[in-house]
């Protein structure tokens, strides 16, 4: 009998396009292997470089031709090698994994997106989805912050987000570094500036944990309740499918119970130091 944890086997995918997004950040468009299911917004894949290792990376887009995009920031051993890959190279993939954003629950509601840095990547599919199904959703608000203007992702299409009907886009950077019309400061500063109707809004947050905590506090101030707030968590992941234990946050396996959680669901643990 063959022994294998089938779910841990990466399958080959071909890189069809590479886009430079920001310093040390690139997006890879992959032709996925036969039988790969269509990912939902907020889900992630495990990307594998032969002999180098594997990393969880969110799906940042699915193109009309069915290519699946991943926006990768160089952070360490694997992402460093991955970032050097070019068109035609083959990498391994498995997925899609995890529970994504509540796009069904948000139908008929306003959607507020708050993203920090690389955190916009898993939220881009939400923006796409709303754009393609515009009538089904209310107002779309996008609050996005990065370290500096050159670190903003998807600069070539950010402005287009603003022209999606009934959409408000506010940008923020920690440091302006040259001409900059947006806000300078924290992305959370944008919350009181935006036009948010607390009665009919679903908030989706992704960024560093500390930024998400501040965001939640600010959202309370404008009147949002826990059950209107969703966030995507990050943890160390070795398997992505609930086997290895590493991604635990309290009793939850972030890989399979998340990475997107409603805040009320994890609140008891999320605020505990070093949980």
């Amino acid at each position, binding site marked *: 009998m063959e022994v294998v944890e089938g779910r841990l086997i990466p399958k080959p995918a071909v890189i069809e396009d590479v886009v430079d997004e920001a310093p040390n950040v690139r997006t890879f468009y992959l032709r996925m292997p036969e039988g790969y299911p269509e990912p939902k917004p907020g889900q992630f894949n495990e990307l594998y*470089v*032969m*002999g*180098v*290792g594997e990393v969880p990376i969110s799906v940042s887009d699915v193109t009309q031709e069915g290519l699946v995009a991943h926006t990768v920031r160089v952070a*360490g*051993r*694997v992402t*460093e*090698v991955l970032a050097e890959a070019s068109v035609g190279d083959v990498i391994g993939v498995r997925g899609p994994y995890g529970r994504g954003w509540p796009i069904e629950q948000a139908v008929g509601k306003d959607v507020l997106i708050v993203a920090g840095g690389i955190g916009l990547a898993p939220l881009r599919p939400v923006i796409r989805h709303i754009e393609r199904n515009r009538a089904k959703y209310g107002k779309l608000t996008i609050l996005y912050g990065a370290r500096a203007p050159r670190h903003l992702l998807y600069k070539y299409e950010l402005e287009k987000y603003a022209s999606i009907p009934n959409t408000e886009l506010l940008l923020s950077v920690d440091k302006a570094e040259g001409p900059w019309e947006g806000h300078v400061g924290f992305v959370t500063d944008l919350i009181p500036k935006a036009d948010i109707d607390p009665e009919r809004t679903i908030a989706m947050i992704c960024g560093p944990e500390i930024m998400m905590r501040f965001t939640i506090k600010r959202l309370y101030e404008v009147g949002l309740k826990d059950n209107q707030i969703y966030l995507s968590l990050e943890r160390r992941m070795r398997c992505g499918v609930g086997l290895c234990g590493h991604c635990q946050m309290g009793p939850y396996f972030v890989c399979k119970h998340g990475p997107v959680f409603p805040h009320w669901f994890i609140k008891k643990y999320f605020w505990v130091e070093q949980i």
Partner: protein
Amino acid sequence: MMRRKLKVAVFKFASCSGCQLQILNMEDELLTLTDAVEFTYFLEASRATAPGPYDVTFIEGSISTPEQEELVRRVREESRILVAMGACATAGGIQALRNWLRLDDVKRAVYPNPEWVKALEHSKPVAEVVKVDYELRGCPVSKERLLSFIKQVLVGRKPYLRREALCMDCRRKGNVCVMVAKGIPCLGPVVQEGCGAICPTFGRGCYGCFGPSIDARPEALASRLREIGMKDRDVARLFKGFTGWSEKFRKVIDELEGGAR
């Protein structure tokens, strides 16, 4: 994946050559590597002219003389990846024992060797002189780790070697804990894995040749050893063994010896 041949150099400083021997002992494995790797050895580091540049340089031995200090700086400039190999290069080695004594006494009594006349105040780990990219610990280094390291460099990745406590590996291997079953003092809980738990496998306690593990808590181990009846002096001696000059162990040793005085 495997592109051009990797240029690898091995330099020997103040050491016993045990680690180099590990490389030479890897004959079979090395044969499989010959297509991918080109080795240059400098058995007597001081004579080498260091005609680099090298992709990977392994340094064996501690830095004990001003000449060696000068040379290792030049080697660093010629090397893309510099690896300190073995307990001597990573923590000063057994010869660092002299660091706790007065140099003159040592020169006269222990090492009647002219080389020591110009010796530095301390037998230093390489990292105290130049930037070290990786450490391959152990006395000697483990063959498996060395081979794995080279293969990882070959695929272009920053090598990943677990640096947790030896206990994990010891227990994975199915050893019986000598501290618990025999009351033998063991440094395993605060020493980096990688040797394959050789000493506990033979019923001895770990002497610490791989040096402190990531986030090691030698102070907690020291109190436990005292709790089970060891004298401060003996605990200090145990920590001094192979990698006592490492920052973490040095601190505990100083505290223990300070207390004894």
